[in-house]
């Protein structure tokens, strides 16, 4: 088990280092001089050169990489050109929206998908399965912003239960803040739940054909008990893989939903930073997301070992 853990950890760190080199290199190669951008088109070459020196843009490449990477490690991401505030403050502010949003959406998606998957798998080919999987097919096909618009129409405009958009901030109290995240979370969760339900169903169906399911039934366990106690845990590996991927998407890929609901999340921050060539912000957020994805993958890998004892004892 320790060997497994150390191996995964080493791989995770190596991936992180590699990713940071790629991110750094790509932004180096991209055309556009940040100093020139900050000073505007009318600045003289001398002024630009001066600022470049100030910003350390003229130092040798490896040194700049190390400086930048070292800064990342101490959470010093540098200053945003456009906002003129430390990037860390920007990110922190946005994460306060994006992280809870992603977590709520992920939780919702899991809570919906696993029971639907279990229901469908245990009724394979019958009417209930057809209906559930038809709904899931629809959920995969319909884009999440359409769900968002429908949700706004029903719950905000018509029933007036929740605000149609905007985020009051956590300072406004827990419930108002949560309330404004509820609809976006549901809109994000539905398509994800649809995918996850299909994965759960097919993983379960495969497991239900295994010999040990028959052994469990031959012990006298009712079908439901066999499903929950024996089948579900064995079907968890593909489900966990998809969950890991979904979390990464939910953290960064929410720009459309953030726009629909006027939420100040990470997605909008990156989008604005890219259009304004605020490269330090782009770099930082990308690295943050890379780190998050790697951390989630590590977590998923470890949870495999928790689920499956064979992985614990293998080298």
């Amino acid at each position, binding site marked *: 088990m320790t060997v497994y853990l*150390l191996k995964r950890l080493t791989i995770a760190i190596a991936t992180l280092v590699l990713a940071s080199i790629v991110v750094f290199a790509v932004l180096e190669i991209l055309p556009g001089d940040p100093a020139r951008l900050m000073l505007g088109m009318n600045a003289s070459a001398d002024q630009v050169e001066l600022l470049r020196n100030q910003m350390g843009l003229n130092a040798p490449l490896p040194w700049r990489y190390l400086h930048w990477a070292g800064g990342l490690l101490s959470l010093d991401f540098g200053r945003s050109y456009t906002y003129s505030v430390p990037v860390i403050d920007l990110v922190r502010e946005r994460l306060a929206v994006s992280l809870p949003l992603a977590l709520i959406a992920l939780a919702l998606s899991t809570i919906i998908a696993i029971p639907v998957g279990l229901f469908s798998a245990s009724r394979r080919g019958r009417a209930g399965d057809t209906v559930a999987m038809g709904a899931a097919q629809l959920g995969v096909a319909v884009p999440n912003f359409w769900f968002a618009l429908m949700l706004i129409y029903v719950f905000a405009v018509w029933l007036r239960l929740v605000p149609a958009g905007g985020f009051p901030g956590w300072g406004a109290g827990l419930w108002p803040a949560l309330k404004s995240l509820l609809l976006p979370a549901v809109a994000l969760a539905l398509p994800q739940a649809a995918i996850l339900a299909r994965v759960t169903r097919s993983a379960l169906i495969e497991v239900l054909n295994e*010999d040990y399911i028959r052994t469990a*039934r031959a*012990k*006298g366990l009712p079908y439901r008990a066999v499903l929950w106690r024996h089948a579900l845990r064995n079907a968890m590996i593909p489900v966990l893989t998809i969950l890991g991927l979904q979390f990464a998407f939910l953290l960064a890929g929410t720009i459309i939903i953030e726009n629909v609901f006027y939420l100040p999340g990470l997605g909008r921050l990156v989008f604005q930073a890219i259009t304004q060539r605020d490269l330090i912000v782009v770099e930082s957020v990308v690295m943050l997301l890379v780190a998050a994805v790697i951390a989630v993958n590590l977590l998923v890998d470890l949870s495999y070992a928790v689920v499956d004892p064979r992985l614990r004892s293998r080298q």
Partner: protein
Amino acid sequence: MSLLEVENLSLTIGDTPILKGMELSVAPGEVMGLVGESGSGKSMTALTVMQLLPHAARASGRVLFDGIDILAATEDQMCALRGDDIGIVFQEPMTALNPVKTIGEQVAEGIRWHTRASRAEAEERARKMLDRVGLPSAKFPLSRYPHELSGGQRQRVVIAIACALKPKLLIADEPTTALDVVLQAQILDLLRDLVTESRMGLLLISHDLAVVTEMADRITILRHGEVMEAGDTARTLSEQLHPYTRQLAQASMHVPARARPHGVGSSQLLLQVEGVTRDYPGRRTSLFRRAPDIRAVDDVSLSMAPGQSVALVGRSGCGKSTLARMILALDRPSSGTIRFRGESITDKSEAELKPARRDMQVVFQDPYGSFDPRQKVEKLVAEPLHVLDKKPTRAERHEMVAHALHEVGLDQRDMDKYPHEFSGGQRQRLSIARAIITRPKLVVADEPVSALDVSIRAQILDLFAELNQKLGIAYLFITHDLSVARAVTDEVLVMHDGKIVERGKTNEVLDHPQSEAAKVLVTAAPNLQRAIARRMQEQG
């Protein structure tokens, strides 16, 4: 009164009739043997009694267990019976246990479910039961996972699950088919002891007539879902009144007619294995430590003449398949040399091995797993042709495949079919056709008939013998089944713990084994004639 009474049972799955008017009974303390070839409905009979049939199955007739009408019982009633009064042991121990639960949990689960015992109580009972089936908790703690056990040990766990609550009826569906003969004998002994201990009824399902004869008091012979013959085991098999019974008995003792050794004494040896050893690195126990290397094959030497047929026998895990892989140049020895037609194959590159590859081919055990299901027979059988120096033209290839199919008794029109259109025996013929298409000098056959029914097995053994005579192919048969060795080989090598412990003429070694390993194998091997004789003797 009978414990289990099956009367006029008919079963259909979809539109396919599986059982037709099946009759069967088992009394307490009695062993009933249910024999038949694959597809005869043996397993479906077992699943009917357990009511674990596939959804599309429809049963009619009467199945009475201990006075309960099984076919009319509700699912709740069945859940109360399963695992408590009726236990079942399945064929494949490798997949019968849940890989993510410990053996203790899996044995205790049924106990807790049926008796509402506390966790500790149930674990105590599970410990006792595992101890009873030969897995003492000092050596096999309850916290073991199935993957930490061997096939034979796993089958013991499955038996412990089935017998944990002292069922009145135990159904054992091919309980030893996946095990080697020595393990088979141990498991059969265990089952017999459990029967006498608690007057349990045992329904033993098997395709192996010898196993059933050794075990069963009465026997039912099933074919295409119909009972051909039923009655006292000794009488049924000694008289062999029914033609199908006779056919089965003869097929399971079948020895192909062979002229005496072919081509032996020719000048050059075909295969020389000299001092070959194969080590595998031990398991990593921590970051910096490994268990010592595992020596799978230990200083083995052997030689084969052209056209000679040699058996390599031994228990599972003795290193025989590893040795075969090295002979086929699919794996390299840690030390020692292997010469094929005088030339070393142990230090050659893949390109240099091509001529050797052309002259050695392989036939595997599982005719289901060794073909790509999406390719047509013509392509599958022609696969080894790529080792030829000159690539054959389409027409030539077609001609060669047709010829190979003809030689193994298939029709050349079979070329356009897919593997699933063939039966198990026909598929094994296909793999033999694939092996002989390059006119090899040596064919290595790894348990080539273990997965086949007795009558098909007899045909395939005949085919091997015929091809040996006709084409002068030398065989290396890897098997744990001594009757196969006896049927088609001149010489036998007995392997144990990576070493060859005995060698000699097949009949001499099998009739008068000298080494301990060979003796164990010979004693454990089921033998129909011996079993009938013993039964007759017991009954006077």
